[in-house]
């Protein structure tokens, strides 16, 4: 169709030069930065105002396990990027395998976090444990929620990949879920540092 051709060419001429779905995802991620700013910014502000009574790193939280979990999430990001690289070369098998790896690692990350939560609650550390508890659970909880949503979306993308939906020419869905996944990893990189190490 002439209209499709005309429209398909058009995004190349914008200063962003990306298709709708990718642009939409970046726009969404910009808003997510502001959402996490609300949570993380509040943490920084509350802590600055109460710094004398804040527990030292490792006093309450389990840093070694979480450091390992951080590494796991980073690995899942690599798996995601390998999945994308696979379909860029038309490698369907690579796409499916690496997507599966990402899902497994992402789900494990959530699992380890859930385990950490149960341990903490068991030791009496809950959201009602003052500002430390409030900020910890709010930030990591919402991050974990975002990871969970990411895992669910990725399962859906894997489903489409298994049905051969993606090709070397058309794999916007893979790229877009990848962007979301890397963003979630990026937020964790910041969170891990300021919540667990500082």
């Amino acid at each position: 169709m002439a209209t499709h051709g005309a429209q398909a060419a058009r995004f190349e001429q914008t200063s962003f030069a990306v298709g709708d779905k990718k642009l939409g995802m970046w726009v969404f991620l910009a808003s997510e930065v502001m959402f996490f700013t609300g949570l993380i910014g509040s943490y920084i502000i509350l802590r600055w105002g109460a710094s004398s009574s804040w527990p030292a790193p490792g006093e309450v939280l389990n840093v070694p396990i979480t450091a390992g979990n951080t590494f796991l999430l980073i690995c899942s990001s690599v798996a995601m990027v390998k999945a994308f690289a696979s379909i860029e070369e038309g490698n369907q098998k690579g796409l499916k395998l690496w997507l599966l790896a990402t899902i497994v690692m992402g789900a494990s990350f959530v699992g380890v976090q859930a385990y950490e939560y149960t341990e903490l609650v068991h030791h009496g550390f809950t959201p009602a444990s003052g500002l430390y508890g409030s900020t910890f659970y709010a930030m990591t909880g919402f991050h974990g929620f975002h990871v969970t949503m990411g895992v669910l979306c990725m399962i859906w993308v894997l489903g489409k990949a298994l049905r051969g939906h993606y090709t070397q020419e058309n794999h916007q869905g893979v790229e877009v879920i990848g962007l979301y996944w890397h963003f979630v990893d990026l937020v964790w990189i910041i969170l891990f540092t300021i919540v667990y190490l500082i």
Partner: protein
Amino acid sequence: MATTTAGPTGIPVREEHHPQPFIRKYVFSTDHKIIGIQFLFTTLFFLLVGGLLAVMLRFQLGFPGAALPGGSMLPETMAPGGIILPEFYNSLVTMHGTFMVFFAIMPLLVGVYANYLIPVQIGTHDMAFPRLNMISYWLFLVSGLVMMASFWVVGGASGAGWTQYAPLSASPEASGVYNGQILWCISIAIFGFSSLLGSINYVTTVINQRAPGMTWLRLPLVIWALFITAILGLLAVPVLTAAVIMLMFDQTIGTTFFLPTEGGQPLLWQHLFWFFGHPEVYILILPAMGFVSEIIANGSRKPIFGYKSMVFAITAIAFLGFIVWGHHMFQSGMNPALGMSFMITTLIIAVPSAIKVFNWMATMWGGAIKFTTPMLFAVAFVMLFTIGGLSGIFMASTPVDIYIHDTYFIVAHIHYVLFGGSLFAIFGAIYYWFPKMFGRMINETAGRIHFALTFVLFNLVFFPMHGLGMEGMMRRIYDTSRYTHLAEVQDTNTMITWAAIGLFASGLYFMVLFFWSLFRGKPAGENPWDGTTLEWSLPSPPKHGNWEEIPTVYHGPYEYSHPDVDRDWLLQNERPDVVSPAHEVTVRQGEA
């Protein structure tokens, strides 16, 4: 009808040649025009709700302690014997603000007109993400219903003000409201999500789907305004969402973000809320300014004066809007150096707004003005918004604000910009685009009556509030008779209440007129206002998919009185030499 949704990779989407069932076509529609109209009907309903709440609270102020007519129908917890209780009064004030800001004005400006106008003005078939668009509407409806539901739960609706300051909002023990508070938070969180989906759509569509020839500086100012507004929404609303969730956690799971007894910071809530809240008020005015630019250019038969400076002003207002929020908090005890910085930035932001006002006036200067109903509302906007803006200058100055903060002076300002500004522009937009949306005209005479009633009554209600504020009448108070210094202004309050009842009645008149015109309005052609933007080249209403073939744009959006053309308007997709060219230059010079 063919469904053509172009994917950016060129993959054609399945075309449908069979008619869709009613539910798919009108209820769960992905057509941006239907979604815009769904927003329109829903928000007009919420506008009525907000207005009714205002009349009720005005009744208490005008006739303190009297029984509300029909008030005996209300439960004992709200108004025993029809006499409004203080707690219920607080809920009325809170909910009036909440419904008007979130469920009436914001969606009327954005949900209706961003959805309806963006594709037809930039020249594309639909939004970039039609299904997300549909979800955005349904989330909005759900959030509105959740807010309505909060009236009927045990403890009643939230009474902490639409600004929900902690610790009153965070502590059920302090406010006496538990479920209603939680529902307020849930409703706003859902609303935030709906707004986000909308913003993603608007930004992506405007960037990626403009018709060939539609460069950035050829976009109608409505689109610029809606685009910048969407960016504001993207950056500001998520902060509110985060804050509201933290507030809900404080109320429910024992966190202490804003509760001072456990180390929390009530001031943090204020900062978070107003960091959102200030860009929010620019979300509430920028699209309105866009409508006014369209209508004034059209009604003056002249291009907008200073198109580029208008674009600059819109962007400057949006940018500066992020660094003025502290002016809502001058009395909070915040760092005085901060206070001074906010005062300076707030005074600066008056400049781009003034640029716009002067540009509108310059547009009208020397124009062949036609005072149609939309034009009346648009010109009134300029006047009333200016008054609201001028009162803003008083408030921007910290020393003055220390005196007038939380008085009726502020209430006067809010309503001059939100009602005299935004709502007047919305009325203008409704009259202006009604023919395009529904293929019928709203009767001019009936519309002018609506305008006259609204204009006179609006000023009777809100202008005296400047004086009331100066006299020291505080905001949100329940019983004016308890304050000796307010005894002398009781008559003014009563007069305002009568005018407010009249204003509400004129709103009802408009609703009747609107619905009557849907069925009995005079059939409208493609371009009843002789407009120049792309939507006026489409049938009224446009078909699903808008265009078979995407138009090409040849020039800017306000080519009124083009010297090379016979008639005084030129559509964006028309070339002057092809369409009705002027016969001879000398003939035109001889004309008046």
